[in-house]
């Protein structure tokens, strides 16, 4: 079919073929200057014994484990506040969503400045309020402190994403149901926990999965705000793939790390697709 062919060829060339090559590369030792040599599962075994691989993996999990509940609970509370029709609440919705449309790279640069030790407004505000007595070194010195600063900046950047989807789900609840609970004299929080939350649970799960997948793939914010410092302790999984593939030119090893990452993500995507599929039935 002439209409379908260009898209199919495009996907074959720019998604299927690279995927095939990545799988092939992951079984080879290849550093671009030397010809590729078949090593079987060698690259995968190497990852298992690679300390930095585990540092990156555990750090990425830690980042994901902290930021996901913040985004979901925070986003849901914002949605409860902003889902109602008043001009002020619509304005709140719009402003919370604005950072979602700007780039993660650019927002990371913005927060790189805000968290800068001597030139940033975060330290200035905290000093003026007397919360701290001398400027804090937020980024690139202590892994946990860097992580918290980056989580704060990414929360600002993406919390509106979950909020807007939760608003959609809350507004889609049939009014008869709300009416019934009003007649029963349920309090506000009773209605939220017993009516609104159960009826929007599928959206909550979906947004949670989307957030987890996004966080496991985090790169821009760490590349820009800490550059992996101190000592690659804040280099995420994608960051370590990038380091191996490009600056270090360990193409085969980088491909094996990509495969591990892709398979991890796949597990979450499958759950996500099953959830969406069920909603069609």
């Amino acid at each position, binding site marked *: 079919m002439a209409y379908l062919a260009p898209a199919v060829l495009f996907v074959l060339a720019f*998604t299927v073929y690279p995927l095939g090559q990545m799988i092939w590369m992951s079984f080879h030792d290849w550093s671009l200057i030397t010809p590729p040599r078949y090593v079987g599962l060698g690259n995968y075994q190497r990852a298992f014994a690679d300390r930095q691989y585990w540092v990156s993996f555990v750090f990425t999990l830690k980042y994901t484990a902290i930021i996901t509940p913040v985004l979901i609970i925070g986003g849901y509370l914002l949605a409860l506040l902003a889902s109602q029709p008043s001009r002020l609440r619509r304005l709140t919705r719009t402003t919370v969503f604005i950072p979602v449309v700007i780039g993660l790279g650019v927002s990371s640069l913005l927060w790189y400045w805000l968290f800068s030790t001597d030139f940033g407004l975060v330290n200035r505000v905290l000093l003026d309020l007397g919360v701290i007595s001398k400027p804090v070194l937020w980024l690139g010195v202590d892994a946990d402190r860097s992580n918290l600063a980056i989580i704060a900046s990414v929360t600002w950047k993406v919390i509106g994403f979950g909020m807007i989807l939760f608003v959609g789900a809350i507004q889609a609840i049939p009014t008869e149901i709300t009416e019934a609970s009003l007649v029963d004299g349920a309090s506000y929080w009773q209605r939220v926990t017993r009516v609104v939350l159960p009826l929007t649970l599928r959206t909550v799960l979906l947004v949670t999965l989307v957030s987890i997948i996004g966080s496991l793939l985090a790169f821009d914010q760490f590349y820009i705000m800490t550059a992996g410092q101190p000592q690659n302790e804040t280099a995420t999984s994608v960051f370590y793939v990038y380091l191996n593939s490009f600056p270090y030119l360990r193409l085969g090893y980088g491909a094996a790390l990509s495969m591990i990452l892709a398979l991890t993500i796949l597990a979450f995507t499958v759950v996500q697709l099953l959830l969406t599929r069920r909603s069609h039935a």
Partner: protein
Amino acid sequence: MTATLERRRARPVGVRTHTHAGRTGYLIGALCIAIATVMLLPLVASLLASVKPTAEAAASPPTYLPHDLSLDSYQRLWNYQQGLPTYLANSLGTALLAIAFTLLLTVPAAYALARFRIPGKEVIFVVLLLALIVPYQALLTPMFLLFARVGLTNTLVGLAILHTAIQLPFSLYVLRNSLSAVPRELEEAAIVDGASSLQVLVRVLVPSTVPAIVTVALFAFIMSWNEFLGALVMMSRGSSFTLPLILAAARTETSLGGTDWGMLQAGITISVIPCVLVYLLLQRYYVSGLMTGAVK
């Protein structure tokens, strides 16, 4: 009685019917304003820092409000390295090419999937959506090797192809849904008049799926304009840098006085403006696209 019911019906979940006008109302209002302020402050701070004079922009500790207004930072950005016009042209060129590629590939494909009987259609659709399952971050090395072999690294066309590959599944999904929803009677009338299938697509279906096309173009623009890692991998030559790349490079620039914070803020402001404008103008399309994209 009916009136009361109607009024209640119109009220969505969560409204506190009893205390709505009372103290709670004011509290909620104050909370809304506080949240809106917190969300806008970083952007406002960046904008203000971009119009500080050179010395003030480099001051430590930083000032809250500019004591003087100056466009020096923008001037330095204009002349930085290859000059702002080069980077703007690269970013804009890539984004426009990505929109063009995405639409040229997905509108016809969505048409075929929505309207024609093709053997193995389901399988083809799944293959086309493959990129949904494989994150592009994992495919960058083989993509880079492929692009290097055919001379597409350091080109806007190459980066636009990468961005199209990222955006294709979402676009196809949105367009196929939208095209499937167009009533067939419209096309049948055109076919009776002797229109070819291409004429049906261009004259009947495209005009009736404008909202979906706008959504697809909007998402392609925002993604391409903002995308960082792919550009970082594909563009190694300074003259082909996009805006996020040159700003990230300027961050670590340690010339005499260290990072040029004022110039960085000018760059951030310029990068943010198109996204925010496009969003505010096309908010409706953005939100509807997000709903289909994420929740499906």
